[in-house]
């Protein structure tokens, strides 16, 4: 009786947590590569070496002592993002959209006093947001000015695009839209909306909010489906190339689309979440299996892989 739903999940090709961990992460992602993705600064440096575009880096803060010169360090950067190098799930990220007298303005329009931001950066350095509570580094990078395509379905903050890449082949993707609940963050567990993307043409499908399937953004009430993601092919290409710079065959690639700079690599994730399946209303397992069955030639270059994806994973229009 209880086994029947299990069978259904298997038939639809849903990838479960245990299988993801045992068959994909433990099997394809060597532990030695984790530090490169767990540390955003390292990822950024690596991406630069491979000429993969990322948001420009402004400042790196390594020691508490540097905070004394924080204001001086900021120079005249008017907007920027503060990130912990080893943060997880979007924690510890602060978006600064402007500056006022002795303070900053965040994406919600609230004023953050200077000492509050300094305290926050101290927290980051102490490791409060880092994976194992280890000492961390904070860095400031350029604030992304998001592509206008998602303006109607974004409540403040910056939407980003998550792509699951298996053995160098992008297999599933979604766009993550900040909501009022998620406080400008594009993380699903914080309440962002995940919207599946048709891999064949880069148009959005239905979305998942909390754990329910939705067709409209909960705050803006605009439909989330049918939006064309700009630069779709180059986005897929960046995702496909990411595997060249790091030895991880089951990878989550996070990108943003800057209205001026185009797609930028934000970070990599060695343990990508499974909620993307709900956003796409499709199981990952089938796609992973079809990659395993694909002819060897398609793995030759990122370009060939992307071409294969556009052809193979196009979601039927009727859906």
């Amino acid at each position, binding site marked *: 009786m209880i086994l029947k739903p299990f069978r259904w999940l298997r038939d*639809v090709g849903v990838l479960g947590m*245990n299988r993801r961990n*045992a068959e994909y992460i433990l099997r394809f992602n060597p532990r030695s590569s984790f530090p490169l993705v767990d540390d955003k600064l390292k990822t950024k440096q690596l991406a630069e070496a491979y000429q993969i575009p990322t948001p420009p880096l402004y400042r790196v803060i390594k020691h508490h002592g540097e905070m004394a010169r924080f204001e001086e360090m900021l120079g005249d950067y008017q907007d920027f993002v503060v990130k912990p190098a080893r943060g997880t799930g979007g924690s510890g990220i602060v978006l600064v959209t402007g500056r006022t007298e002795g303070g900053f303005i965040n994406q919600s329009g609230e004023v953050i006093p200077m000492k509050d931001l300094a305290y926050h950066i*101290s927290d980051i350095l102490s490791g409060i947001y880092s994976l194992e509570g280890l000492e961390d580094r904070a860095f400031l990078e350029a604030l992304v000015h998001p592509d206008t395509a998602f303006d109607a379905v974004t409540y403040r903050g910056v939407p980003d695009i998550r792509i699951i890449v298996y053995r160098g082949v992008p297999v599933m993707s979604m766009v993550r839209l900040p909501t009022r609940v998620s406080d400008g963050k594009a993380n699903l567990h914080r309440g962002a909306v995940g919207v599946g993307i048709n891999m064949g043409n880069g148009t959005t499908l239905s979305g998942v909010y909390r754990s329910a399937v939705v067709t409209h953004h909960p705050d803006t009430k605009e439909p989330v489906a049918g939006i064309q993601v700009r630069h779709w092919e180059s986005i897929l290409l960046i995702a496909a190339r990411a595997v060249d710079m790091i030895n991880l065959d089951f990878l989550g690639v996070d990108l943003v689309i800057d209205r001026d700079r185009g797609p930028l690599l934000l970070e990599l994730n060695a343990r990508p979440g499974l909620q993307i399946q709900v956003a796409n209303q499709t199981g990952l397992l089938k796609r992973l299996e079809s990659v395993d069955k694909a002819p060897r030639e398609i793995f030759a270059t990122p370009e060939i892989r992307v071409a294969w994806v556009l052809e193979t994973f196009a979601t039927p229009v009727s859906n």
Partner: protein
Amino acid sequence: MKRPAILLAAALLLISFAVISYRVIWLKYPILPPAPAKVWQLSMEAHVKGGEKETSAMIGLPSARRGQLVAEERIHSGTLNFTLLREGANRIGVWSGAVGPKDEVIGYSATIQVKPPRPFKNRTPPLEPYPPNVGEKDQAFIRRLVAKWDPLPPADRLRRVAAAMRGFWGIPPPEDQDLRAWEAFRDKHGRMTAFLVLLRAAGLPARTVEGLPLTESITGSTQTWIEVWTGQEWESLQPERGEIYQPPVPLLLLTTTGLPVIRVINGELSEARWTLNRGIISQWRMQFDRIMRSDRLLDRWSLFRLPEEFQKTFRILILVPIGALMICLLRNIVGFPTFGVFLPVLMALAFRNTGLAYGLGIFWGVVLIGYVVRRWIDKLRLLLVPRLSVILTLVIICITLFALLGNKLGLREFMAVGLLPFVILTMTIERFFVITEESGAREALRTAAGSAGVAVITYGILELEPLQLTFFVYPELLFAVAAVQVLLGRYTGYRLSELLRFRKFWRSS
């Protein structure tokens, strides 16, 4: 990928199974733990007075014999030395040394289990010679008195002799002059000697033994009775009246073959007191006794050979892997969210001291107080390590307050909170706060409830005494636990919680 794991699990199971089989088949371990048995708690206490020279007090102690197990012996010897001697079938405890002007108190205690003896083959003991002060004339006379019973089997002969001691000589009775001569002999040598001579004359090996009646009692003196060999076993007789005790014999033997229980050289013993109490021996002790008496390799390497204070720790420790196994099950198959991986096991261990209700109450209490304070501290902008230190201090303060409160209210459970894993509690408060901030109070409460639930289930398992005993007797079961853990490590199926998480899929299909 799956194959090596399955092979490893099979190997582990095989090791576990092989060692258990060896124990059961060759070492005759019980498959089911034995039922608790009734036992007697014996204790002896006496004051030794000494003189100038070294004093020795020799006291007969109960020994393990057929139908009698002695365990948990404890000696109190004050400043004296204690040694154990064997004199024939007797165990003699010798307390020796210079006794100062003040009395020296010596003591002994033991747990004695009296079991119905199994029949066994034994050599018939030799007939002892007549007591030295009984002349040949008397010997011949008494031999003549009992000669008519010679054709009877020993047990029946004993019954006739015992009846004769009570004055019933059967039909036909002896001549009057013989009876008078017998009475004179009995009065001259005492009933005890007379009885022994009578038994000797009847060809029945007999001996006097000393010990205590098996009733709940406190007594200052021991009793003497006679044991007679009737071909298969020793039968016990009351020497004065010649009554035969029916088995189980309500007597506890201390010394045999006429050796007095108490002998003192250069001194005297006063206020000797024996106490007997009924008790129930736990299953633990019974295993312990069995294993301590064995010299097989596995028995010598048994956990029962550890000093007792460490055994208690290992009874629990050996079940912790099962707790971990439960966490594997609940997290990877059911999908319970928990704080950390092993917090629930540590909580479960702490619950053993506080009890479940108090333990859970205190857990929630400390976490909520901690959360409130943590929220407030957040405004102070403390750096990570000092902040965690503050919360740790708060946790310790809470625990101390609980203990003091418990003392006032007379609640032992509150005082046992010191054993809560305070470091883990501190991290739990921090995690609880972070999850509340990041994912909302609902998620935080869900995780806390998941942790508490897993802790309760784990506690229930740790508290199962039969399970504790089974693992203690068969520690190789840990290999089997490891095997299941290995298999769980390769379980790549869905979690129960994923049915809910991906319900959209199976509803639509």
